[in-house]
């Protein structure tokens, strides 16, 4: 509290002191002013901080200064001589200590450091201030409400300031000026007593003037004091002290006035000081001229002030009384009002005032920026005072009251002192002033808000233009951007990866830090090519096949895939080889089988001969063909035929049977081809859908079998066809192949074929008519050259003779021929119809009318002349015709006595030894021997068969004069014309097992003993009977006998 009080005292005092010094300097002369400048500069260098740092350095100056003051203060002390002052001093010391403790100002601490005297001096110096402060405080104490009001007003002002910022600033500046003007004299008064004491030599002029001013002022003050007193007395009745002061009316009054003024000045001066110091600083910074101007102005204002002061004070007092508030708040307002009179009121210094105004204006411009700071500090100080005000109240009225007289005296000397104020003083005060700034600065936060708000407003204003400009720019930019954005599209790009540095793996790091720099790691895989693969599934084989229904033979399927041609080729080669093998095996096996069977049959026949010798007189042995086959059971053998070329090949025709059997061939005729040396089984089994009327082998090799049927068709079987292509049937343990016809004219050649039952089929001999040796069989080479092309003649009952050409195709078509519908699929032989001939010419109309219908029953070709054919008719006649060319002389071969007889010719047989002789057997039992050249027979034997119809008649192959006749009563008659030309030599009756067919076999050329007769029995057995030696061994007389018969007849 005390320290603060002191501080405030110093605050209030020091700026004034400074100003006084400045003015003094100015007053004195330019030289001193210049010196002051220098010193001030120096002082400026000697900052507060510096003083803090090195107090010793600054001490000498201060000491000097103090020494100077020392006397002054001592004088004063002497004058005062009051005990109160001592107490004050003590208190001041205490205050000093307090202040030291507070240590908010380093200077205080330092103050203890200087010597006792120094300290004392300082204290005294301060005490003096304290006294003044106390007085002022007293005044304040008297007006506590006023203080509060003042503070309130301050606050209000702050608020108002925001609104009237600029005005206030201007006002304040004006106020400051006025403050300076007002304050200066009072300060002079303060100073005067001191200075006057030890400075005798004063400029008289000046002094006089000052004194004058003082006097005038005192008068004014007295008046004012009176006015104030009323108020004060009312307010401070309780204060004795005050009354005591009143006894020293004049002094106290003056002091009161001073106090009040000072208290008022507190605000003003503090503010003014600030501004001034600021200004001073700027001054220092800037031109000296300005400075000097100011100082001059200050000085002059000081004079002016002296004159104006009265008025001013009056105003102040009046307003103060009016408002019943402290002097402070009125002073604010007053100052504002006063500024005008002050500036305008200068009578003698008008020009100077103008100058000062100019300077002031300059300042205004200069300080525009600094106004914040000024404001800031102003507020601070006012706040300071607000705080300090009440503090001062601690009753310290005594010392000021006692010192009032002295002060009054001092005041008079102030003006002089002002003039004389040394540079050191001014320096000192300036330093103090600076120090005083500090506490003010420490409280700045109070006003921060107001200040910032003000600043913000200020910025707004200043920046307005800029804002305007920038706004203009912004609008232009905006317009531009809107226009542009219509035209372009902005898009957010995908994230560009600028850098992607993966962290180093631990291993790499290890290698990097510990690995060998020149080594690299590599790896090698050994045995890389040793891979192993395994597939468990097998490849799927595929091939294409075709098939045909019905699957009668295995050839009904094939393999058309060309990709398998290679395989087919190899197979073909194999087939070729196998064909050769097969052909070899076929022939060889036949030989072997024949040999085996011969061996067996010989032993058997030997036995049989013994056993059956009794039964048949003409035979000395027999061979049983194994016809007891399941599919032949119950069938009658209608025909037995031997091949003219291969004498050992025989076929037997089995008629269809009505009895059902296991094999479904009931309605079919079966033709079995036998090799008589292989009697155990037939070589081939041929099947035809209906009955077979007649059969014949192909000339030469008996590879084809032709047959005529009652339905008028001619069929042929190719025995060379592979058995695999035919219907196979397994019966029991044996496999049987049933061959269907290779070619059939059934319903195929309706126009050209037969419409009547075919009665005979005969191969047209291929050799030319002029062939002389008909006995010789055609050579194999001839056969080969002619191929299989030969003519076939077929005769039906109506006498139509058809000639067919047998054609062998080079290659059979497995799928069947589209054109030859009669050809079996895979068949290679077919019949082509070449010509047809109607052979029936009735011998006479008369005969024809009375006889039964004429039928052609039998066809025979002349063995050596293929042009001549002989047809047996139903009238017992044999018609003689030629295929082409002139007709042969006898048209008919007739009976001996009559022309014709209704008896069918049942058999015609040419003699193998004499081709121009042939035997004719008739159904009435008559037998004729004809020569080709004569129509009448050479010999005719009636009733040789006892009236029985001749079924079959054949010459024996080995003896020209022997022939066999079989009649319908199953009697076999053997004729030997050498022995007896009128009746048969032997007649054998086979009634036990009737014979249904008979054929003579034997080879006329070899004339071996193996000739005989094949007998087909009713039971189905086929028995081969060998002729006895007498019947087989020819005699030379036999042909002579035939010759004789020819010559005898003609």
């Amino acid at each position, binding site marked *: 509290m005390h320290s603060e009080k002191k501080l405030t005292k110093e605050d209030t005092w020091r700026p004034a002191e400074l100003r006084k010094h400045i003015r003094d300097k100015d007053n004195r002369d330019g030289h001193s002013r210049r010196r002051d400048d220098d010193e001030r500069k120096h002082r400026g260098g000697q900052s507060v901080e510096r003083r803090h740092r090195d107090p010793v350095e600054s001490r000498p100056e201060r000491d000097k200064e103090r020494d100077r003051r020392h006397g002054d203060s001592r004088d004063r002390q002497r004058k005062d001589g009051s005990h109160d002052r001592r107490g004050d001093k003590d208190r001041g010391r205490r205050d000093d200590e307090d202040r030291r403790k507070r240590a908010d100002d380093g200077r205080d601490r330092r103050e203890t450091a200087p010597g006792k005297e120094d300290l004392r001096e300082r204290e005294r110096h301060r005490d003096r201030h304290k006294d003044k402060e106390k007085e002022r405080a007293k005044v304040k104490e008297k007006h506590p409400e006023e203080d509060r009001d003042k503070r309130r007003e301050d606050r209000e002002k702050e608020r108002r300031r925001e609104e009237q910022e600029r005005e206030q600033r201007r006002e304040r500046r004006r106020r400051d000026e006025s403050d300076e003007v007002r304050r200066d004299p009072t300060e002079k008064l303060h100073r005067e007593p001191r200075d006057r004491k030890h400075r005798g030599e004063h400029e008289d002029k000046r002094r006089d003037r000052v004194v004058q001013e003082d006097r005038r002022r005192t008068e004014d003050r007295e008046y004012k004091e009176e006015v104030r007193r009323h108020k004060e007395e009312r307010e401070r009745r309780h204060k004795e002290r005050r009354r005591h002061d009143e006894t020293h009316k004049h002094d106290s009054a003056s002091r009161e006035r001073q106090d009040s003024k000072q208290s008022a000045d507190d605000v003003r001066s503090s503010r003014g000081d600030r501004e001034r110091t600021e200004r001073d600083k700027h001054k220092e910074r800037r031109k000296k001229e300005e400075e000097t101007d100011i100082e001059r102005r200050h000085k002059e204002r000081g004079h002016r002030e002296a004159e104006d002061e009265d008025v001013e004070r009056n105003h102040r007092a009046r307003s103060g009384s009016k408002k019943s508030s402290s002097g402070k708040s009125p002073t604010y307002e007053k100052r504002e009002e006063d500024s005008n009179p002050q500036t305008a009121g200068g009578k003698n210094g008008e020009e100077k005032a103008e100058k000062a105004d100019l300077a002031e204006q300059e300042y205004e411009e200069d300080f525009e920026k600094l106004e914040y700071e000024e404001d800031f500090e102003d507020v601070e100080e006012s706040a300071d005072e607000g705080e300090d005000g009440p503090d001062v109240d601690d009753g310290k009225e005594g010392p000021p009251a006692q010192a009032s007289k002295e002060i009054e005296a001092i005041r008079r000397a102030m003006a002089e002192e002002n003039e004389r104020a040394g540079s050191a003083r001014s320096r000192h005060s300036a330093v103090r002033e600076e120090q005083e700034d500090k506490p003010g600065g420490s409280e700045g936060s109070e006003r921060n808000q107001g200040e910032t708000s003000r600043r913000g407003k200020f910025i707004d204003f200043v920046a307005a233009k800029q804002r305007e400009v920038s706004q203009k720019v912004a609008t232009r930019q905006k317009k*531009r951007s809107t*226009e*542009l954005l219509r*035209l*372009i*599209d*902005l*898009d*957010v*790009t*995908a*994230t*560009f*990866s*600028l*850098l*992607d*540095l*993966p*962290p*180093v793996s631990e291993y*790499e*790091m290890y290698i*990097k830090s510990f690995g060998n720099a020149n080594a690299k790691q590599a790896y090698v895989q050994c045995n890389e090519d040793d891979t192993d693969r395994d597939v468990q599934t097998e490849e799927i084989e595929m091939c294409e096949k075709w098939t045909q229904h019905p699957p009668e033979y295995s050839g009904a399927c094939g393999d058309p895939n060309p990709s398998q041609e290679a395989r087919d080729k190899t197979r073909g080669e194999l087939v070729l080889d196998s064909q050769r093998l097969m052909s070899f095996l076929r022939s060889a096996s036949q030989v072997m089988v024949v040999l085996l069977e011969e061996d067996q049959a010989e032993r058997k026949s030997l036995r049989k001969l013994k056993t059956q010798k009794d039964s048949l007189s003409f035979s000395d042995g027999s061979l049983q063909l194994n016809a007891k086959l399941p599919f032949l059971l119950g069938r009658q053998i209608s025909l037995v035929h031997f091949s003219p070329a291969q004498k050992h090949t025989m076929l037997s025709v089995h008629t269809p049977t009505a009895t059902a059997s296991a094999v479904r061939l009931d309605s079919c005729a079966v033709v079995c081809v036998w090799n008589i040396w292989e009697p155990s089984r037939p070589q081939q089994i041929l099947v035809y859908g209906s009955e077979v009327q007649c059969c014949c082998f192909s000339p030469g090799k008996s590879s084809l079998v032709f047959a005529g049927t009652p339905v008028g068709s001619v069929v042929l079987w190719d025995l060379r066809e592979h058995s695999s292509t035919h219907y196979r049937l397994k019966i029991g343990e044996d496999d049987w192949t049933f061959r269907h016809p290779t070619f059939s004219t059934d319903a195929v050649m309706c126009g050209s074929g037969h419409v009547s039952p075919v009665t005979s089929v005969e191969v047209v001999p291929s050799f030319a008519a002029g062939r002389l040796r008909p006995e010789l069989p055609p050579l194999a080479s001839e056969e080969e050259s002619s191929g299989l092309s030969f003519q076939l003649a077929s005769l039906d009952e109506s006498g139509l003779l058809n000639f067919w050409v047998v054609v062998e195709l080079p290659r059979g078509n497995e799928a069947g021929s589209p054109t030859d519908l009669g050809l079996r699929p895979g068949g290679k032989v077919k019949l082509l119809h070449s010509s047809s001939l109607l052979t029936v010419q009735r011998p006479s109309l008369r005969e024809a009318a009375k006889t039964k219908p004429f039928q052609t029953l039998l066809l025979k070709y002349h063995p050596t002349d293929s042009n001549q054919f002989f047809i047996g008719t139903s009238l017992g006649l044999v018609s003689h015709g030629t295929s082409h060319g002139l007709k042969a002389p006898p048209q008919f071969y007739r009976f001996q006595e009559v022309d014709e007889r209704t008896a069918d010719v049942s058999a015609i047989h040419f003699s193998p030894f004499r081709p121009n002789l042939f035997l004719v057997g008739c159904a009435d039992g008559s037998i004729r021997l004809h020569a080709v050249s004569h129509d009448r027979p050479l010999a005719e034997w009636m009733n040789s068969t006892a009236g029985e119809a001749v079924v079959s008649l054949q010459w024996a192959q080995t003896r020209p004069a022997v022939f066999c006749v079989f009649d319908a009563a199953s009697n076999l008659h053997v004729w030997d014309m050498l022995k007896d030309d009128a009746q048969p030599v032997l007649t054998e009756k086979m009634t036990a097992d009737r014979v249904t067919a008979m054929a003579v076999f034997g080879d006329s050329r070899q004339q071996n003993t193996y000739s005989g007769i094949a007998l087909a029995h009713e039971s189905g057995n086929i028995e081969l009977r060998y002729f006895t030696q007498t019947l087989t061994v020819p005699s030379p007389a036999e042909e002579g006998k035939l010759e004789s018969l020819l010559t005898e007849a003609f």
Partner: protein
Amino acid sequence: MVEGSDTYFLRPNHQLKFKPAIVKGYIREIVRERLSGVQYDPENVPELTLSLAESVKDKVKNAGFDRYKLVVQVLIGEQRGQGVKMSSRCLWDADTDNYAEDVFMNDSLFCVVAVFGSYYY
């Protein structure tokens, strides 16, 4: 030209378009030249980065990409086996604007230089 109806160059001349390949070449050249064999030094890297950016900018400026505003970003980091990911996104007119970047690395440092060229209409 009538006032109020401004005209703009909406597209750069084809020859004067920002070409990333060329810029990348520049960057590569400069960075190779300046950084090859340089060890990472935290003291020097800030100035190095700045000067690199400046030189790249100057080079690209001289390349004559008309009416292009350039942004050069240079990043130098020490290589200590750490993983680094760096990416950028732009809101721009993809027809005219483009960017080029190049990465330089040696044993001690890595340097990423990205140059963004934005067309001024």
